[in-house]
């Protein structure tokens, strides 16, 4: 049972890291444009693009 004394803090710490990451992302406007985020991963080369 003494294992619990390590495992519970470890589990909580990992959970808190996740929560902290989420709150940071929220603060950094990562959730402002979910449709855009899905499309931005398709950007490839640099340099200006031709007009359409």
């Amino acid at each position, binding site marked *: 049972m003494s294992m619990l004394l390590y495992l*519970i803090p470890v*589990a909580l710490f990992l959970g808190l890291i996740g*929560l902290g990451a989420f709150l940071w992302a*929220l603060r950094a406007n990562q*959730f*402002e444009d979910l449709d855009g985020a899905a499309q*931005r991963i398709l950007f490839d080369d*640099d340099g200006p693009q031709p007009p*359409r």
Partner: protein
Amino acid sequence: MTVNALDIGAAETAPDIDPAPFVSRDPDGRDSLVLLVDGIHCAGCVQRIEKNLSALPGVHQARVNVTTKRLRLSWEPSATDAHALVGALTRLGYESVPFAAETASPDQDREGRRLLRCLAVAGFAAMNVMLLSVGIWAGAFSDMDAATRGLFHWVSALIVMPAVACAIRPFAASALAGLKAGEMRMDLPITVAVLLTTAMSLFETVRGGPHAYFDASASLLFFLLIGRYLDRQARAKACAVAENLLVLQGATATVLDLDGAQHAVRVAELQPGMTVLVPVGARLPADGTVLRGHSDLDASLLTGETAPQAVGPKDQVFAGTLNRTAPLVLRVAAAGQRTLLAEIVRLMDAAGQGRARYVRLADRIARVYSPVVHLAALATFLGWIFLVGAPWQQSLMVAVAVLIITCPCALGLAVPVVQVVASGRLLKRGVLLKAADGLERLAAADTVVFDKTGTLSLGRLKLANLDKIADTDLAAAVSLAAASRHPLCQALTRLRPKIAMLSDVREHPGLGLAAETADGELRLGSAAWCGLADVPSGHDGPELWLRHAHGGAVRFVFEDSLRLDAAATIAALKARGLTVELLSGDRPAVVEAAARAAGISHWRASCAPADKIARLQELASQGRKVLMVGDGLNDAPALASAYVSMSPASGADISQAAADYVFQGERLDAVREALDVARQSQRLVVQNIAAAFVYNALAVPLAVIGVVTPLVAAIAMSSSSIGVILNSLRLYRLGADRETRR
């Protein structure tokens, strides 16, 4: 010149808007501007816009938000300016409209973000505490000793107390606001139950007892916050689209200074006495008098009248009318004058107050529910002390168990989940649900009142006597008409878009068109213009005459065309048991014809805005719940005073702001669709609430006799919540069934 086909359902004509008045100065010294951009569909568009604009000198940031179709630009004011950037965007192939900074501020969604933060904290707490609770429940059947259980309870307490302190705030704030207003909202029993449960569990933990309900309070908040957040997001999305639609109409005015110089001013900043230039295709920015120019004004949004109206110097003109044929210069009417717009706003303010008194179903239930629940808990507490003779700690424990079991988790989810599914389904069909209680009110509607112009009809004129006109005559007329922006001429040109325009067409505003051909002069215009002054009209709608060089004349008569599915929609609404009426500002003969074509037997013509309100109040006093569908400025007060209201996206901005629903596209069927979805949702809401009550009726006796343990509470609560959610999701299936049957 126009941003015509904005894929979100553009206003018919949005003139080029000068972006300069919309630029705002950031604290870091840069200028910034938010633009609504047309035609962003794919990653390629985003990349093309961002890369090309960022590459321009002086541009600090160009960032597209695909969800809202808005582009945020910021730049060094010394290096470039708004005109250059908007020009560059246009050269890339994207039309844009500027956004006023106050409507596009980045923290407009502060409320949604606050909910999401609470949701994250509650989720973290619920999951970690559940991890410990499962251990405790398993331990109850095996060998867990009291010390380990105590440790688990203490860890749970450490997690849950700060989480509850954070995540309870949206509920507590709403419950307090309700109490201040003297009413009991659903948030009150939620707040009381969560706070009492947490406090009691802490007490139990200190005492070393077995009954700690930390997992219940955390997961309760988690579930409820999910419902609340989704509800908010669905409405925020609909409101963002509605806002985009409004921006298309909001514009700048071109002010002429005394020395003749022009500069752009936002409409809201116009001062009385200013001289304003109104180009062709723009809406008049303010009420006023014409100083120079002759033109035709389309007042259909204002009065419901479809025939254009000719104006000249000294004529009084009204904001919201569309300038069709020639530029006008007008003087803005002095403040305090009795302007039409001011009158409409005053009527709206007076009419909208009734709407605010509507109490949502969930809150109506809460008025009964929360006193009953709190009294039941109190009775349980007293009963255990005096009848059973239990110690007060144990009695309090049982009373808290009653509160937990009755905590309206399922009730709190019953409405929002249905609401989210319904507004998602409507959004896909181009119907924006703007009001939070719109579904409830629409489901109860038993009478529909339509406006004519722009609502039943498209507000677009079409040739009525096409079958009586020779093709050569039509071709000759179109070859002239193609040169003009007059609505009647455009209606002709739409019929034969491929016919070439004659080379030398002269337009005489208010009279007609003329061109020299090999045979002589060809004229198109009013009867007088064609030298036919005393021809009896015999037709109420607008008309055009064509005079050939050899003297023969042909008459073209026009009428406002109904939406293609108008009659079918009216029939469908009647089949659903609704009474349909037509109230219009147009002339009786025209309204009667439209009513007959659409299959409406009750109609009234020549209604002023106040007449429409009077009719709605008359219906309301007969106990009718009226759905008002209208688009014009003259409908706005009626929209605000009706029980529930819809407006097409082509309507006046003030009407869209007043309406509960905005529908896009040319199909009137959206009205029927919205009604069906609202009725289905309401059925599901009632089912959900009934299920929650049945569950309470079963569980409360168990809680009162004291056999509810934390495990039972957790199972009972989550099963009822999941049941309600699953039932709500059936709304997707109900919709799909109906579509396959069609």
